[in-house]
């Protein structure tokens, strides 16, 4: 029985690295498997495009490495046949693709959310079959992470390095993860402080950009916990701060060189903070997450696309990043911490609105999911029971609980993914939305889009008047200038029984 499965695509690796390069990657994988064995983890490698191997697993081999559906089906077959405690995707999206979930907040008219697709690995962590609807994947049950090579690479050195780091990883005492490096755009300092207080109990070490960055003194990034809340952009090796209309570089790939301590774990809220773009073809510095991992970081949680957060307090990207770090502090593996973060994020929302759905879809764990950065004291093991056997049993108990939780979420959580068709907004609602828009500082000419709330079959309460919203209204618009600085606002309003009964406001921060 395997505790951990590594999945990859041999044809895609061969296309990138040739026979010799692929052979060196396989050797590094075998070293990781041997290192896992010493830690009591039985690990196997499965090629998703290996017809014979996939047939044994009652699955169908991937023909087209870029096809999300084929890859989802193949990974589902792996899980059904082997039920691993950990699944590690080996390779960037040009080896095993992200899943292509539709972005419910996408605004084709321009100016709003520019991402038609919320790329992510969430569906690989769910039992629901392939779909482009992120609302199908709000009940994750599987522990999944991705160890990415460099997109477009032809030399295997980088991936071999990452595999070697994973093979040699060490769990450390929690005290080694008490300190942190935190960086925030100046305009979001309030929200970032709140996040840091929630995770670390203080915000004393928060750096603001400007003035911080992009260069840092040697040792300034040495803490093993990183929390970054800045601007980001697609295919960019830079994160940006903000003061007024100025967006200075806060951190870039060169400034991370030689600065990342082995064992670092980063939670990064930036838009595109987890974008694994093809730096080789583009001739750009490698993505920041891949700079981290290449220097010995164990894990990195980041977003593939545009991310959201409220102006005051915390929400969306803030929360999923916090939950990830908090789970790690409790001694979870990287993969379990990511799963717990997703489950907690879904659980804490009464219903998942379009922004919530995009958030849970877009954040991905980069790193070997079986790595436990922080060591926790295990339970006493009775005489005659091997430590690995006892740990396997404890892990099975944890997985059973996570499975129950995920299934419960999938069965019960309502979502607002589908845009309402032919909806006629009453005068009462129209007036209420107009008032909310005005209060939120949205300029005239805004447009709300209505989304129907869909509850899983059988989960809606019966015999009582409805108590949960039946529809959400989303407006993403430019606010009136505040302190001479125009800022963006997304308003999500909840409708119940023909009335607007609440709303949330997300600001550009």
């Amino acid at each position, binding site marked *: 029985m395997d505790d951990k499965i590594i999945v990859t695509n041999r044809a895609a690796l061969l296309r990138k690295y040739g026979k010799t390069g692929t052979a060196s990657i396989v050797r590094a994988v075998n070293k990781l498997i041997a290192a896992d064995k010493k830690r009591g983890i039985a690990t196997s490698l499965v090629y998703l495009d290996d017809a014979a191997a996939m047939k044994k697993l009652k699955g169908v081999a991937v023909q087209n490495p870029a096809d999300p559906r084929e890859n989802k089906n193949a990974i589902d077959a792996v899980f059904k046949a082997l039920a691993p405690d950990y699944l590690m995707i080996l390779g960037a999206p040009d080896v095993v693709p992200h899943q292509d979930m539709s972005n419910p907040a996408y605004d084709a008219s321009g100016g709003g959310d520019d991402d038609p697709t919320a790329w992510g690995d969430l569906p690989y962590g769910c039992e629901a079959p392939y779909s482009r609807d992120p609302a199908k994947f709000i009940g994750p049950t599987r522990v999944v992470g991705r160890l990415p090579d460099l997109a477009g690479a032809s030399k295997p050195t980088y991936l071999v390095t990452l595999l070697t780091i994973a093979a040699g990883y060490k769990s450390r005492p929690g005290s080694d993860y008490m300190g942190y490096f935190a960086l925030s755009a100046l305009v979001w300092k309030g929200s970032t402080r709140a996040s840091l207080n929630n995770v670390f109990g203080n915000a004393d070490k928060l750096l603001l950009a400007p003035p911080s960055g992009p260069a840092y003194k040697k040792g300034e990034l040495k803490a093993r916990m990183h929390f970054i809340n800045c601007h980001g952009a697609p295919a960019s090796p830079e994160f940006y701060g903000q003061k007024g209309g100025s967006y200075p570089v806060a951190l870039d790939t060169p400034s991370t060189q030689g600065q990342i301590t082995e064992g670092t774990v980063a939670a990064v809220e930036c838009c595109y903070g987890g974008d694994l773009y093809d730096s080789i073809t*583009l001739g750009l510095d490698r993505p920041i997450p891949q700079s981290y991992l290449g220097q010995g970081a164990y894990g990195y949680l980041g977003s593939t696309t545009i991310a959201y957060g409220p102006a005051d307090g915390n929400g969306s990207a803030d929360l999923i990043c916090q939950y990830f770090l908090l789970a790690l502090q409790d001694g979870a593996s990287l993969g379990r911490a990511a799963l717990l973060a997703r489950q907690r994020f879904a659980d804490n929302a009464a219903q998942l609105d379009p922004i919530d759905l995009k958030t849970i879809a877009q954040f991905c764990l980069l790193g070997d999911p079986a790595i436990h950065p922080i060591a926790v004291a295990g339970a006493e093991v009775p005489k005659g029971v091997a430590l690995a056997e006892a740990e396997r049993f404890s892990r099975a108990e944890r997985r059973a609980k996570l499975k129950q939780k995920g299934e419960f979420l999938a069965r019960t959580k309502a979502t607002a993914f589908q845009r309402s068709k032919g909806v006629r907004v009453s005068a009462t609602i129209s007036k209420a939305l107009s008032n909310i828009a005005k209060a939120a500082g949205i300029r005239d000419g805004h447009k709300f889009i209505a989304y129907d709330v869909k509850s899983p079959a059988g989960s809606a309460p019966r015999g009582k008047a409805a108590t949960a919203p039946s529809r959400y209204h989303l407006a993403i618009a430019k606010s009136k200038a505040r302190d001479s600085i125009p800022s963006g606002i997304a308003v999500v309003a909840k409708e119940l029984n023909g009335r607007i009964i609440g709303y949330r406001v997300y600001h550009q921060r």
Partner: protein
Amino acid sequence: MQQQGPQHVESMVGQVVREEYGRGSKSERAAVFLEAASGRYLLRRKAGPAFGDAQIDACVGHRVECAGFLLGTTFLAETIRVIE
């Protein structure tokens, strides 16, 4: 993020405009777009900053010919030639 990878484009002609981008998100700003026959793309210089690039800003209001890479809805320009 573009799963298929960057596509090299020898020539794309279009009008450069400034519009809002990523409203309500962590990316929101006034950004520069290339309005071409094939679509509307966020315009950046490959060698320039993603935010506040003065050389890109100088193209606003002009018709330009660009060469570079298409990445989903972003055009990463290696060269930009002002036509008018």
